């Protein structure tokens, strides 16, 4: 969440929501959360685990880009 919220502060195009997975089982099921942290961007790009800043940024840019 740390990188996500800093990117949200840096760009008005980015929003960041931290979701406590055990309190929201339905959302967790919808997004197939098997391991945490799990990051989902625009319901299009997703990954598990923490990424360093450049890789996290690349994921954000990919999520904003044209559909694959």
């Amino acid at each position, binding site marked *: *969440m*740390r*990188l*996500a*919220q*800093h*990117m*949200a*502060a*840096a*760009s*008005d*195009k*980015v*929003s*960041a*929501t*931290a*979701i*406590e*997975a*055990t*309190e*929201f089982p339905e*959302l*967790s099921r919808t*997004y197939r*959360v098997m391991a*945490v*942290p*799990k*990051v*989902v*961007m*625009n*319901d299009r790009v997703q990954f598990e685990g923490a990424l360093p*800043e*450049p890789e996290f*940024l690349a994921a*954000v*840019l990919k*999520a*904003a*880009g044209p559909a694959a």
Partner: protein
Amino acid sequence: MAILQERDREAVRKEFEKLRGPVKLVVFSQELEAADLCRQNEQLVREVAELTNDLATVEVLNLAIDRDRAAAYRVDQVPAIVVEGARDYGIRFYGVPGGYEFSNLIDSIVLASTGEPALSDETKASLQTLGEPVDIKVFSTPT
């Protein structure tokens, strides 16, 4: 009974020495939906706000009653926290922030207060090129 231990409070106070501008913490609750968690969340947010030297204000809204506000904040779950600074940066917490998410909540309050993201210049420049909005969801557990 307080949720935060004195040693937590001490650590948060130290982190909050970085606060500069006002922060608004908007809490969404709904007793019928998740009474205990919503109460816990409200209490936690109030305890945190008490450590900000009056820089943070807390507003508690009801998801079922304050529907327009919820829609404007795009909040559709409870308990939820919106962390706002000079503007709404789009930072939300769903669920009672515990463990690592609690640290992120504290960090987000400092971030909203200063408006200064801790990112490299390259990252900040790249983010300015975004054409489409990007909604990031980060799922975690308290441990």
